[in-house]
């Protein structure tokens, strides 16, 4: 019996791949943690963005007990919050449906882990291994259903909301769950339809193809501005953030579907929301902002000049650290004028940050210069008319592309925060009428117009 | 100075109806009364201080001015002393600016020496002066404050206040139960008339003259009478206040529950004034057919018992147990008893006694119901007391329960269980009650920890009279209803009818179920609904249907 199983395992119809291919293919699975890593930054960004928009300072109390309390401008607050959420009592209401109450918060979070699988993080890696061309896709799942798979998965995340609302056995939670469910179903329609135009242009559901099309032609936002607007709006609604946070409107239904949740179960909702935003941002960046593509720089061009690209990335990092250094110096001065009781402690903290960034910035800049001069991409081997680079060049270019994609995603993450702290909450009927009467129709009209123009311009069959 | 005044004639159901013209509109009013009552019958309230429907007319406050047509055309007259005449023309402030101005001016004079200390006055909230002020005297006063605030009363009560003003007459002890405030008095002489005509003991009089006049007792005497607290009720201002309620609570915070006097068979109508589960006072409830506007001081003090010496749980062989334990014990004893004596009570409502009869019905021939009381009966005083301390004696006999406590004593040996409900036999006549101690199981339902509770083998607390809804029949055969005030000291307490229904095995939850049982077994009560009883009671036919 056991022998048979071992035999079966050995007989698994695995593709034949080289070691490097295996490493990259498996290593790609690390990308599912990108939303998780984003969350930490997102929460910080949200808090600081909100506070600055509202003319206040935001979190600035939690500190590491070194150098007079390192606070990193409130960044430490996230971790204290995390500790708090993990160590609080996880409370289950008496009449809750226990199993679903426990399971439901995880569903949305699980989906957040699955969706990065369909996103192209970089252009397909190609390198010459000596006897053949190795090729590794930029996505974890390279399927031609592509983004539909993501939609299918994210449509399942509604069950997390709905079941948590129902399992709480609370009227407010149920009302919130109802609202969330109805809204998500409504906006999924216009969300899907709005993308049809860009699918039509790219001729594929596969995000890799869509990005390649944008790289070759023009960014999606320029050919599909209406679709961009509709998709962005629908995505904000899907994430249930202001101005579409009717599902948790505290003035009406206390906290909506996560009313009865406490500690880390609530934390899962909280993090799920941010993970959702991150995914949505990456998707929008991929669909409408050319994904990993750098404007006017094709993947081949990037690979040919990967040393410049890396140097620019490092130079940017060094400049940012330099900017941080200047900011710290400024803050140090400002705090000294406030006449606060803890001026001495703060001074030590700012001095440490000033020193560290002051040292790090020139070092990184020097590194950038070194990279520019020392790295020298080997000349490409041309195979069937396409230049093929060595493996490390492809991987370095892929790293640059991941950075570019993440930078674009950050832009949209910021838009999420920006919109939230600008616009007031919609009324529920307004949400519904916007979804069904305006966005859906816009998406349909956009699809028809795109189809006609595409037919006229390209003369596709 | 004649001491005789006319009593006002009050309208009744069979009053002659006449048509008069009020403010240019013809209205039909009772023809045998004065204008205040006639106007009230058509919904026009006339402000007044000295007029009281159950006191002789005096007409000294001049506040109830209206205009009527006289020999010289329309002229001012006081409504309380003007009888209704068919076809007369009357003008109220609604149509006559003259009347409005006159009333306003009179109000200004009333207020000349009246201090504006409503916030600390105990009468505030039920003060006629305060109520009428906005209606008749709104606007600014013509009296300058420094001149107006002059005290002219008894010189021995004069003092200079914290603001340096000449004041006096505060806080004068004129009797064991009453405090007088001369400064607030507007000299309506209602209290004087009450003591003279109703109490029949003239203890108060108006001393001095003009603006020096003040109310006082005769020299060397105190205001001390069994009905003297009624003067605090009829006082239209805060001049006479009772010591027991003084500074206890503000009247606007009180809730009022209509009830009837639990200490006397006349069943004087009362209000239970309570707030936050505490009864603060009992006030007379006007019922022209029973007690008019008066109640005795003894009635007024009945609320004090509600918070003292209450039996809030159960007693078993003198030990304190929970209510349910005691009830379980009672149920066992009743079920295993060979012969049960159930003693009904005239202190309980008809519903409670009906529940006892239903218990007797459940127990069948093993049970025998006794009734009556050993409390001594005094003579009626003609005001608000009948002298009989058992308030529902008529009701118990109406239900067919004979007055046969003496039989119970003589046949005590026959019984092995006796159930007493709110009948304190050991207090009423401890010698006769001694014979009952031959009965091995003495079960008592009582709201208070009485002598009977101490003599009982098992006792259980019930709601007292103020906390239950139910009906009683007064000595004149008038069916009256008491409403439940939410003042039960412990939530677990139940009314007697509910406890008895538990013992009978039938769980009545609403008092109406007990009432339906009572109407079913008692022909005079048959087909009487609660809604038919009304606030002033229902006179039962005098056929004497009781056995």
């Amino acid at each position, binding site marked *: 019996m056991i022998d048979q199983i071992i035999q079966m395992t050995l007989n698994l119809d695995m593709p034949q791949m080289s070691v490097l291919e295996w490493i990259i293919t498996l290593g790609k699975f690390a990308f599912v943690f990108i939303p998780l890593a984003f969350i930490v930054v997102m929460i910080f960004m949200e808090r600081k*963005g909100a506070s*600055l*928009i*509202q*003319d*206040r*300072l935001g979190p600035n109390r939690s500190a590491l007990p070194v150098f007079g309390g390192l606070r990193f401008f409130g960044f430490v607050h996230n971790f204290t919050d995390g500790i708090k959420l993990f160590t609080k009592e996880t409370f289950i209401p008496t009449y809750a449906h226990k199993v679903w109450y426990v399971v439901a918060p995880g569903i949305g979070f699980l989906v957040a882990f699955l969706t990065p699988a369909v996103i192209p993080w970089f252009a397909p890696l190609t390198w010459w291994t000596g006897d053949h061309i190795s090729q590794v896709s930029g996505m974890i799942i390279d399927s031609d259903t592509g983004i539909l798979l993501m939609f299918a998965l994210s449509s399942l995340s509604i069950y997390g909301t709905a079941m948590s609302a129902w399992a709480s056995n609370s009227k407010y939670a149920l009302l919130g769950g109802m609202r969330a469910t109805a809204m998500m179903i409504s906006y999924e329609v216009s969300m899907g339809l709005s993308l049809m135009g860009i699918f039509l242009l790219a001729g594929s559901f596969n995000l890799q193809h869509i990005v390649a099309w944008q790289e070759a032609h023009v960014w999606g936002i320029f050919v599909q501005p209406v679709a961009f*607007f509709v998709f962005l709006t629908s995505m904000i609604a899907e994430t249930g953030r202001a101005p579409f946070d009717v599902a948790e409107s505290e003035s009406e239904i206390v906290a909506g579907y996560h009313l009865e949740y406490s500690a880390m179960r609530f934390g899962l909702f909280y993090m799920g929301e941010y993970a959702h935003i991150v995914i949505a941002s990456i998707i929008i960046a991929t669909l409408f902002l050319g994904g990993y593509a750098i404007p006017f720089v094709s993947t081949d061009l990037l690979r040919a000049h990967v040393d410049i690209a890396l140097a620019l990335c490092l130079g940017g990092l060094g400049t940012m650290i330099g900017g941080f250094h200047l900011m710290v110096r*400024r*803050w140090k001065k*400002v705090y000294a*004028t*406030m*006449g*606060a*009781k*803890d001026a001495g402690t703060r001074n030590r903290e700012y001095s440490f940050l000033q020193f560290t960034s002051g040292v790090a910035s020139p070092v990184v800049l020097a590194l950038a210069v070194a990279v520019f001069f020392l790295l020298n991409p080997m000349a490409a081997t041309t195979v069937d008319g396409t230049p093929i680079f060595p493996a490390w060049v492809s991987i370095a270019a892929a790293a640059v592309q991941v950075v570019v994609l993440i930078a674009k995603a950050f832009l949209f993450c910021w838009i999420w925060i*920006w*919109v939230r*702290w*600008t*616009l007031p909450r919609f009324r529920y009927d307004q949400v519904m009428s916007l979804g069904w009467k305006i966005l859906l129709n816009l998406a349909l009209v956009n699809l028809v117009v795109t189809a006609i123009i595409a037919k006229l311009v390209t003369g596709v069959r | 100075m004649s001491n005789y005044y006319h009593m006002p004639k009050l309208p009744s159901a069979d009053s002659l109806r006449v048509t008069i013209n009020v403010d240019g509109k013809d209205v039909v009013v009772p023809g045998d009364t004065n204008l205040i009552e006639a106007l009230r019958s058509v919904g026009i309230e006339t402000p007044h201080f000295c007029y009281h429907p159950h006191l002789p007319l005096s007409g000294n406050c001049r506040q109830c001015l209206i205009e009527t047509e006289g020999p010289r055309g329309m002229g001012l007259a006081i409504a309380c002393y003007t009888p209704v005449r068919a076809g007369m023309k009357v003008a109220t402030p609604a149509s006559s600016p003259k009347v409005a101005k006159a009333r306003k001016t009179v109000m200004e004079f009333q207020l000349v020496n009246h201090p504006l*200390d409503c*916030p*600390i006055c105990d009468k505030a909230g039920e003060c006629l002066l305060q109520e009428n002020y906005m209606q008749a005297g709104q606007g600014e006063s013509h009296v300058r404050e420094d001149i107006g605030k002059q005290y002219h009363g008894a010189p021995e009560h004069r*003092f*200079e*206040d*914290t*603001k*340096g003003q000449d004041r006096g007459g*505060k*806080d004068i002890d004129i009797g064991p139960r009453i405090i007088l405030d001369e400064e607030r008095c507007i000299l309506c002489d209602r209290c004087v008339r009450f003591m003279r005509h109703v109490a029949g003991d003239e203890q108060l009089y108006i001393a001095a003259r003009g603006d020096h006049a003040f109310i006082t007792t005769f020299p060397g005497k105190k205001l001390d009478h069994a009905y003297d607290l009624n003067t605090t009720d009829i006082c239209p201002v805060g001049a006479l206040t009772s010591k027991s309620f*003084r*500074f*206890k609570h*503000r009247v*606007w*915070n009180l809730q009022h529950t209509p009830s009837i006097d639990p200490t006397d068979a006349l069943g004087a109508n009362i209000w239970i004034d309570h707030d936050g589960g505490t009864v603060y006072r009992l006030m007379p409830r006007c019922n022209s057919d029973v007690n008019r506007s008066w109640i005795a001081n003894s009635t007024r003090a009945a609320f004090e018992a509600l918070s003292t010496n209450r039996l809030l749980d159960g007693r078993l062989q003198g030990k304190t147990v929970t209510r349910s334990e005691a009830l379980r014990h009672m149920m066992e004893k009743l079920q295993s008893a060979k012969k049960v004596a159930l003693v009904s009570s005239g202190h309980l409502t008809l519903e409670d006694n009906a529940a006892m009869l239903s218990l007797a019905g459940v127990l069948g021939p093993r049970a025998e119901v006794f009734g009556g009381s050993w409390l001594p009966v005094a003579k009626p005083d003609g005001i608000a007391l009948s002298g009989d301390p058992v308030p529902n004696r008529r009701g118990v006999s109406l239900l067919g329960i004979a007055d046969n406590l003496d039989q119970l004593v003589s046949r005590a040996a026959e019984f092995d269980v006796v159930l007493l409900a709110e009948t304190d036999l050991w207090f009423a006549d401890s010698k006769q009650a001694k014979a009952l101690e031959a009965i091995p199981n003495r079960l008592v339902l009582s709201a208070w920890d009485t002598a009977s509770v101490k003599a009982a083998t098992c006792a259980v607390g019930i709601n007292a009279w103020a906390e239950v809804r139910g009906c009683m029949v007064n000595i004149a055969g008038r069916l009256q209803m008491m409403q439940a005030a939410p003042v039960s000291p412990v939530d677990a307490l139940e009314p007697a009818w509910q406890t008895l229904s538990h013992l009978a095995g039938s769980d009545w939850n609403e008092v109406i179920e007990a009432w339906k049982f009572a109407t079913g077994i008692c022909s005079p009560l048959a087909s009487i609904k609660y809604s038919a009883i009304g606030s002033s009671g229902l006179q039962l036919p005098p056929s004497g249907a009781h056995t």
Partner: protein
Amino acid sequence: MAKVIQRRSLTLLERSYLWEIIKGMGTTFKHLFRNFKNPEKMQLMSYPEVEVQTPQNYRGSHRLMKRPDGEPRCVACYMCSTACPARCITIEAEPSSDPRIEKKPRKFEIDWLVCVFCGLCEEACPVDAIRMDTRKVAISHYTRKEFIADMPRLLNWDPKDFPANDAQSQKAPGGKQNQQAKQIWGLEVKHS
């Protein structure tokens, strides 16, 4: 009666909301940028490191005003407890020992956990006996019981904390006359 204000109807651009949303986002971004650039110009205090000066007329926790002899000025009229929308004031009255004064409180309790700090008790008081000018806005205790302020606590305030030109805060009305009146009535003047 009611004046009807004719609202200007929205233009097409405004009705599309998009342009207005962009304008609004411009506003918030302006704030963000300004605060990022000049954080020192933000109107804020780094409480508790930086002391906050609460204005004198800010509604803080209550205090009871005193007569010159240290007795509460309150006459137990219940006006404050009647006006209180939160019903947080409990008063029990008793006759005053000073014959010129009718009532005084035997018990005067304010439950600060229930209080909504609306100031209606101040408004209602006919004798200016209760005030909310202590400028104590952060009331913190360890138990619920400690939040119920009784009369000694409400009377326990220091005249030095209040402006000297506020005569009411320093001494009760009557002043010299009051003292004379006390002498006339043969009452001992017990000055604190």
